């Protein structure tokens, strides 16, 4: 089981989510975040308003997946979020120790969905 965290541009969210749905990845958590990359938040002002600390508005997606779905998820996010311009974002893949569905108490791969 893996936990995938992706930081992408806010205007790419719709596209990424629809591509994930196409690959049968439905479960996701989305949050508004602030962040900056190597350019220290300078080069991308037109895509986002610069806040304190040169931070720019981003969206974070968090998806728990079974191993078979790791590559399709990465592909979907990359395809949806890539524009070729600086600021497209990053994907982090982490090992996931366990996953529990609260309603039923299921654990492991079946709880991931």
């Amino acid at each position: 089981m893996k936990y995938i965290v992706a930081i992408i541009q806010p205007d790419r969210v719709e596209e990424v989510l629809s591509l994930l749905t196409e690959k049968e990845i439905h479960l996701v958590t989305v949050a508004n975040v602030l962040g900056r990359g190597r350019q220290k938040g300078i080069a991308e002002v037109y895509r986002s308003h610069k806040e304190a600390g040169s931070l720019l508005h981003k969206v974070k997606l968090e998806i728990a997946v079974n191993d078979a779905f790791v590559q399709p998820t990465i592909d979907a996010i990359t395809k949806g979020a890539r524009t070729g311009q600086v600021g497209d974002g990053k994907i982090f893949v982490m090992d996931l120790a366990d996953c529990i569905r609260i309603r039923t108490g299921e654990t492991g791969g079946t709880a991931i969905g």
Partner: protein
Amino acid sequence: MAAIRGAWLRRWLLALSVIGLSGVAYAQTDGGAVAAVAAVATATNAAPAAPAVPTAASVNSGDTAWVLISSALVLLMTIPGLAFFYGGLVRRKNVLSILMQCFMLMCLISLQWVVFGYSLSFGPDVKGIIGNLSWAGLKHVSFDTPHWDVATASSYAGTIPHQTFMIFQMMFAVITPALILGAFAERMKFSAFCVFSLLWATIVYDPVCHWVWGKSGFLSNMGTLDFAGGTVVHINAGIAALAAALVMGKRVGYPDKISPPHNLPFAVLGAGLLWFGWFGFNAGSALSAGGLATCAFVATHVATAAAGLTWAVMDWMINKRPTVLGVISGAVAGLVAITPASGFVTPLGAICIGVGAGILPWIFVSIVKPKFGYDDSLDAFGVHGIGGLWGALATGLWATKAVNSAGNDGLFYGNPAQFLIQLKASLITVVYAFVVTFILLKLVDAVIGLKVNDHEERIGLDLTQHRESGYTMLD
């Protein structure tokens, strides 16, 4: 399910129309209770006092104070009223674009009005179609003497200075293009917006204003009753909005992937300010402080109350829940519909008009728009266009000379001819507004392009058109 809903709807519409018609019957016996004002002498929103040429001494301080305050109230309707009403309804990435468009119109159209707009709208008549440019730059428009039209031996407003009348009308000219922006919200280039609005104000608003309210305007001569702008403002802008929605096309992701209003509290704030300001819009159109203004004030208020309630009831019955968005849309529809009728109807007539304003726009917004799929983003056509059409026709039904002897009787008071006049004037305005707006949009599109591209639309107009953000996240 659909059959049961249909039966419910028919039953309730029947109940509402029974209430409506009994309201009329009651109103007809109630006519004498409302003050008839002798001061009003034309079928428009003008209020000349004396037959002699007015002088600086004819200026009445009460009337002037009221009309000046009303001018400020109508300005309030644009910003913050309409700006926040629409601003709350769009997505957060576009909130500033709405506020900017409204604010820019205040600047742009105010100047256009002074430089030549007022002259075209209210200036000396040319063939009943338009005013001439003799008042360009407000030449001959006095700040201390009332207006006097030699050709018709009458005044727009004999007890207030000419510039008071001018500034009052300016605010109407400012808000009318602002109403249209509800149709193309979230996707129009700001440069195209400025050019289009300026052209529209000059080529559509000014002529239609002249036809209905100008001395010797041909719709005025025909006997059209439009107390405060049902035709000139709402039908005009509402139909232009439909043309704009059709020409601009849909937003990316419409209808399923468009997020809901980002700030309904803003929208309610805006609606409340619209209601407050509309007293200036309607009661100020009496151009005097007294019985007629009171009549318009009362009619405005009760019609709006009736419309808000009706829309809430429609939502409650048909969609199971009354909504905030519904009740404020209903209230605005009521304000729109009572606008042409406010100085001509009794309070009970106003309630009936309000009920109709809660029903017809509701149908267009909830049923017709999804069915036909046009993207009238903020229901500028559904509320202002349909509400305005209903109001103009309803004026032809419920108007009574007992309230305003300078008006006319409507169908329910034994004069079917007025209804036909209203219908004719409405149709002429609909055709003109639609065709000319369509042409203007195509023209602007050809020269500078109307719509932002898909990428810019997704990022949002605030960032792409103005390099600004409405909200910060951290600080």
